């Protein structure tokens, strides 16, 4: 609520802009990649783990925006990678190249990048932000739990292994099944995202003493996305709640009260 609760940065860095869609791909049906044109004022702030709030055209329903992680950036553009889940993403999936979207951002706190190698563990579309993380940090291994997740998330050469519940892409099982041989100590940082139940299971596998290395990319139903509506609460270990949109979406695992957290 006071200035110190929000990500550091210059006033005015969060802007609401109309942005051109310069490319649209749907390699896997129902999973859409949109490239949006952006200038340095946006891209310089688009650090790994931060997100944008996209207005769903033509309006006014759905009423509130939809949050999406900045999936990767280019010299004059960035990408969103999303799954069609409901009417908002459905409408967004119909966006055509050349049209414009209203985008607010970059928003939130991203990953704390203080050197060292990263282990990425993600379920579902949570991994949409990993490509951006690998652009900025040394990513050693990705363990993903989604059909064709490795192909989709395009981690530029980072070793990637994935599993799906129904075996539709290689092995059948849960992400946790892939964690047995993971050399946890080799990684200075662990990025974790996905459904809350899956993240809880992963947290139980993290060797004692290493959970301090885990940074969680959280999801919550958002109203504003910029810290005022108190809609996006994530239970805090210290009691009360964190705001996913400004205390997160990337939150050190130790700050979360995993017991109380039920997810979106």
């Amino acid at each position, binding site marked *: *609520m*006071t*200035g110190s609760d*929000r990500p550091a940065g210059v*006033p*005015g860095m*969060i*802007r*609401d802009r109309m942005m051109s869609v310069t490319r649209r791909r749907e390699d896997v049906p129902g999973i859409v990649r949109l490239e949006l044109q952006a200038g340095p004022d946006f891209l310089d702030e688009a650090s790994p783990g931060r997100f944008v709030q996209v*207005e769903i055209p033509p*309006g*006014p*329903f*759905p*009423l*509130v*925006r939809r949050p999406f992680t900045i999936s990767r950036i280019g010299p004059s553009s960035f990408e969103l990678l999303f799954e069609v889940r409901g009417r908002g993403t459905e409408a967004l999936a119909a966006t055509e190249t050349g049209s414009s979207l209203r985008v*607010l951002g970059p928003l939130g706190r991203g990953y704390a990048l203080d050197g060292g190698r990263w282990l990425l563990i993600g379920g579902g579309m949570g991994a949409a932000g990993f490509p951006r993380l690998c652009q900025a940090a040394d990513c050693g291994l990705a363990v993903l739990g989604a059909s064709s997740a490795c192909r989709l998330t395009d981690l530029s050469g980072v070793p990637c292994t994935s599993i799906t519940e129904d075996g539709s892409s290689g092995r059948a099982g849960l992400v946790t099944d892939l964690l047995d041989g993971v050399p946890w100590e080799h990684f200075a940082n662990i990025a974790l995202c996905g459904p809350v139940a899956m993240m809880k299971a992963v947290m139980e596998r993290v060797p004692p003493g290493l959970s301090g290395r885990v940074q969680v990319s959280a999801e*919550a*139903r*958002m*109203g*504003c996305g*910029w*810290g*005022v*509506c*108190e*809609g*996006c*609460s*994530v*239970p805090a270990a210290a*009691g*009360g*709640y964190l705001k996913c949109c400004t205390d997160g979406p990337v939150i050190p695992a130790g700050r979360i009260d995993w017991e109380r957290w*039920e997810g*979106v």
Partner: protein
Amino acid sequence: METGPWTLWGREYDSPLMLASGTAGFGLELMEMGMLAGVAAVVSKATTLLPRDGNVPPRIVETRYGLLNSVGLANPGVEEVLASVLPAASRLPVPLIVNVAGDTVEDYASVVERLDSSPVPVGYEINVSCPNVSAGGAAFGASPSTVEEVSRLVAAATRRPFSVKLTPNEGSMVESAAAAEEGGASAVTVCNTFLGMTVDWRTGEAPLKRGVGGYSSPALLPLTVARVHLTRRAVGIPVLASGGVGSPEDVLELLAAGATMVQVGTWLMRRPGAALELLEGVRELLDGLRGFPDGTGT
């Protein structure tokens, strides 16, 4: 209908737009985003005597044509607001009105008394209409005699002006408005979210833990227009409209119905820069009018 400048509590504003409680924090985030242009005044999120964590999430659920919220007056409590929020808010380029909620009738006056020790608030909004808490909230607003009592206690606790934010969900809003005036209120806010709910028919469960929440939507504008109109005829104090604004036409309609100022809330979730967009739209529409009548509704 005033076509500007708009006057409230002795101050002139070149915009009729206030930011509604709970949808703009204390205005600091929008200030940093450079989006306070077009704003006459910010109404803060609710402040209570003691800190409140708020309701168990999820707190926001969208329905096909609107938004349900169940925030539950999450706030750090009046002492923390005094210690760290209001000093920061002294940098706001626009006046701040602090929204106050309570569990008992006395709470409101206590919070206001404490807040009076800060030079920052220009006035208060007394929230007797929150649909998202069991004690207090709408229960107070439903009874004109309680509204009058709260108003009297607050009037005795401060010399600053205050508006009483009424509930559309129970009791008679018009009688409560008259009671607020009688009790010494300097305005009434008409109104708050409507009691609403959604149920997942597949599971029989309500996504909001408390079941019901506060519903807001641009589709509710006609409900606010009616209540502003009826309240306007019942009281002499200013009526601050709150509910359903999503376009410049909506702002003008509420003014035409008798509102002194117009609050925008949920629409800020869609458009954080709404105030300036709406104000520019309002100016354009007014410019297009020749011989604008001075009606206040029928």
